[in-house]
């Protein structure tokens, strides 16, 4: 049985100038679980992830063909409302980028843009999402200090809270723990496992052990091509493709 899906990728090709970095990728991303994208460096993992919320657009000279359907809407359709698409997905980047404002304002940034003005409402939104991101206890007494004054690990959880505060259905995370210490990494991983019953979480990682810990579903990319995808058990235990097996065994990297 095909799992439910909100994101359908059909014949997606991405070019940076003359570089053909994603080659004819087609996949249905299953809902409400952790999807891990693995593959060697430079194979297009980040590009694929950034195609889902059209952040690839910000690269100069980028060209995209094919479709990414999110909720039955092709997000590369020129008439599509970009802010609307991006609001559906929270983003965690490799290094956390808190906005140049207080912890409180970071979380309230999105909701304010989308029209929430009421102070009480904002307070409860901020508290709610900081709790979900597992940061509330640590920052509740310093909500109005600059976001840069907390640790990197806390900043990453703050970024998670900021992303969640616009009520997305999907969380996109590009090597979200690569700048973090082991304890903060575990915090992030734990939140993903907690959140996956409500969100579709797509994580790029090059740490295979992390992939095994997190993944319900695995996508393996190699040189811009989608080699194999499927439930984590199947891909890790009995990969269909020789290349996948070699990557998982560390023969190729």
């Amino acid at each position, binding site marked *: 049985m095909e799992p439910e899906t909100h994101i359908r990728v059909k014949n997606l090709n991405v070019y940076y100038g003359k570089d053909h970095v994603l080659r004819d990728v087609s996949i249905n991303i299953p809902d409400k679980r952790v999807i891990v994208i693995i593959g060697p460096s430079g194979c297009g993992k980040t590009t694929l992830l950034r195609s889902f*919320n059209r*952040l690839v657009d*910000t690269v*100069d000279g980028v060209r995209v063909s094919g479709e990414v359907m999110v909720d039955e809407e092709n997000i590369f359709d020129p008439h599509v409302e*970009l*802010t*609307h698409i*991006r*609001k559906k*997905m*929270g*983003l965690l*980047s490799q*290094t956390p*980028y*808190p*906005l*140049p*404002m*207080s912890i409180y304002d970071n979380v309230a*940034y*999105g909701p304010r*843009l*989308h029209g929430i003005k009421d102070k009480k409402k904002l307070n409860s939104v901020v508290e709610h999402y900081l709790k979900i991101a597992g940061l509330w206890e640590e920052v509740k007494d310093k909500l109005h200090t*600059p*976001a*840069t004054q907390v640790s990197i690990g806390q900043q990453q959880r703050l*970024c998670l809270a*900021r*992303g969640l*505060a*616009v009520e997305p259905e999907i969380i996109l995370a590009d090597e979200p723990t690569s700048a973090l210490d082991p304890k903060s990494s575990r915090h992030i991983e734990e939140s993903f496992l907690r959140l996956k019953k409500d969100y579709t979480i797509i994580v790029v990682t090059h740490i295979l052990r992390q992939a095994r810990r997190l993944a319900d579903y695995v996508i393996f990319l190699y040189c811009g091509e989608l080699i194999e995808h499927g439930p984590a058990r199947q891909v890790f235990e009995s990969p269909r493709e020789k290349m996948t097996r070699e990557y998982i065994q560390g023969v190729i990297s």
Partner: protein
Amino acid sequence: MDRRRIEENIFKGLMIVSTIALCLILVLIVAAITFKGLPSMRLSMITQTPKGGFYLGKEGGILNAILGSIYLAGGATILALFLALPVVLYLNLYARRNGSIVRLVRFCLDVLWGIPSIVYGAFGFTIMLFFGLRASLLGGIITVALLILPIMCRAMDEVFSMVPRGLLEASYAVGATRWETALKVVVRQGLPGMITAVLIAFGRGIGDAASVIFTAGFSDAVPNSLFRPAATLPLAIFFQLGTPFPQVQNRAYASAFILTMIILFISITTRIVSRKYTRHIIK
């Protein structure tokens, strides 16, 4: 001692000498205007306008030029800021990075920066003649705004291009438009640099004589209308230095001292005031 050690020491010496020379120049300038100017400083210098015979050594002050300069440079800085911000935000957020438009605009700004201020003065004067305007505070403001626009643009451009892309993306990712990102993230992040840019531009504007000599004119009265001529400190210094009377010449140094103090005062207060708004900056 081997050769590399000697080389190292020669360069070290050179760097130290140059750095000291630079600081010395600053100290000498400040010392010169202080020693020559302070003895002629009277309270009347900053509270009175020139009375009859002021330039012959009689009573009066340069209040007209102090206020004229502040109005003129202040007005020009504000005007230039309103013109510069959209240009710089366009270059850094909307236009294609390092595209041909961006390079062309940056090239134009660099050329404009290099044009001597007397040329701006002549240009402003021609335009005013064309519209049948006389030398006035407004004419001066517009001309000086044009003069400092490229400086402000390039300085702010430098600042905004340093804003990390990840920061912009973090804002886009929660559904912010470019405009919202520009206003709430980029301007905030760039604020300290913007303030520096504005101060550099203001300093250049308040200190320039050549661009205002035809366009703002000169007047012994405190400026009270945009459409009347207005005095400026650099011209007041120039006129006083140009007289054959030593006591008037010394007052020129006092005027230079006042001009320097104004710039110092404005730099320091802006920095103090802005400190409050810059504590959130991402390093």
